[in-house]
């Protein structure tokens, strides 16, 4: 049995089918968890979950949002049980260091769902339609969630479409 180009009847084939999705899944998990090991654990566990829940996959749907939804759920659970005191710190380019640090702190303070939609939209560059499918909501709802999440970053990070400047 295949769905979305992935063979759902064979473990190896299923893992092979997920392989192209792993880089994006890892980036999502890393952006949410801010720790490489935690992110890779989340992706591995999500893959195992996906295999176990493969019968919930709807024929005709796309695999990527389905898998990203499972990864996101794993991240939520990982955040709840996490006892890590401090996330890994990356070193942005010097001119942007302060502003990037501010954004990093602001993201860390966001609730999980707000952080998730901002990461999907502005870090993974996913279109609203795919964010909607990942969240299992309408595109309009996804837009509203992004809008509200961005609202929580204002006024320091006010995003103005087409403004072209800061």
């Amino acid at each position, binding site marked *: 049995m295949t769905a979305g180009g992935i063979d759902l009847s064979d473990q190896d084939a299923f*893992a092979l089918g997920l392989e192209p999705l*792993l*880089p994006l899944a*890892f980036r999502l998990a*890393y952006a949410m968890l801010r720790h*490489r090991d935690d*992110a*890779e654990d989340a*992706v*591995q*566990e999500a*893959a*195992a979950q996906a295999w176990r*829940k493969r019968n*919930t996959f*709807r024929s005709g749907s796309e695999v990527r949002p389905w898998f990203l*939804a499972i990864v*996101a*759920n794993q991240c*939520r659970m990982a955040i709840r049980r996490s006892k890590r005191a401090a996330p890994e710190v*990356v070193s942005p*380019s010097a001119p*942007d*260091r302060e*502003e*990037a640090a*501010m*954004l*990093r702190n602001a993201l860390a*303070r966001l*609730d999980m769902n707000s952080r998730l939609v*901002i*990461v999907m939209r502005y*870090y993974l560059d996913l*279109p609203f*339609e795919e964010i*909607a499918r990942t*969240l*299992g*909501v*309408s*595109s*309009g*709802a996804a*837009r509203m969630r992004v*809008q509200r999440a*961005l609202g*929580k970053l*204002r*006024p*320091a990070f*006010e*995003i*103005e*479409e*087409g*403004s*072209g*400047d*800061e």
Partner: protein
Amino acid sequence: MNEERFRSLMRDAIGDVQASPWLSQAVRTRIARPETPPSRAGWVAAIAVCVVVAFLVGAIAPRLLHPTTSVTPGAGAGGVDPTNCTLPVIIYDQTPGPDPTQPWDGGTSAAKTWGLLNTHTGKFAANPSASPVPGMPVDLSTVYPNPPPATGARLVIPPQPALAYSHATGRWLPVLPERVSPDGQSYVYQDDIYGSTVVRYDIATGKSVVLWSAGKQIYIIKWIPNGILVGDSEPTPRQVWLVNPVTGVPTVVNSPPAAHYNRGGDSHPPVPLATSAGAVGLTASGDPILKVSVLGKGTVTIWVYYYTAAGKRIVIYHKTGATANVSDVNGVWFTGAGLFDPAYAFTSGDESWFSTFAPSLTLWHWDATRGLKSVDIGVQDPHVLTSMPAGPCF
């Protein structure tokens, strides 16, 4: 800043970290690992936890969360007739329409109009001077100066946009309506960048009082008649306190409210395009109003409901409609034809006001007696995004 600049900043903030080359192999190994069936002891423990949680939700939660009265949307409205009252409203509008050549920005560039709606006539009276709000404190945990000030410099916060209206004082306020006291005389905010405090601001005197310093990150859920509900994580708190708005003394209300919250989206399995669930607002007593959408074969079913403190489910709306495709500049998305699809709810007393995702200027009112009724705003605009209630009707 524009979207591309923000994306670049996101990459700098998070980092462009790549997965390990052995992740694929690790995934393959993980999938191949045999599943361990739950042990008998595990089942017993799980059942025991369920029994304890059920006991807490059913027996203890009402006493903890509602020590004196049971405040639900069915109790106490203040005698206001929702069909003939004045409702504060914020309209999000994208006139003259989004640029079809540009990706949609989530509405951040939308123009907002603040005003008062006569629910009897549908007449909307805009108030151009409502926002921004100068001279009132806001959450420092969500306000950052840009660019950052030099070390030691005094933090100057620019006036913030209005988010709520207090009829009692006749003022627009720079906090969400859930932060405003039931009598409209005060609101609460967090005055530290870590979001660990609860501070009461009295509108008439212009004075702030620190009620509680939690010593860790918290968020304010809602100011309810019994006190200020505060949680330690959003939207599903693991710990909830009821803070006395006068003395600042916090009382732990613990897991029962979290159990209520867990009935929302996070507890559902990730089944995209089949089920979505989450809270759209809070009742007057702070319990989440939940929306569940189920996509069937050619149909969409929407449930909107909440649980009372005693664990009784109150259904606000339940209907199935044919799946409808809605087209806009970003493509096609799905909803149910003619269905009530709420985006946000604000409840005060026994009155709930809902905004919807539908591109219309319709607000919806619900109470247990009248049921769900729509109220049209007398403004015609094809580019409106949504219209949000910003406080109780008066």
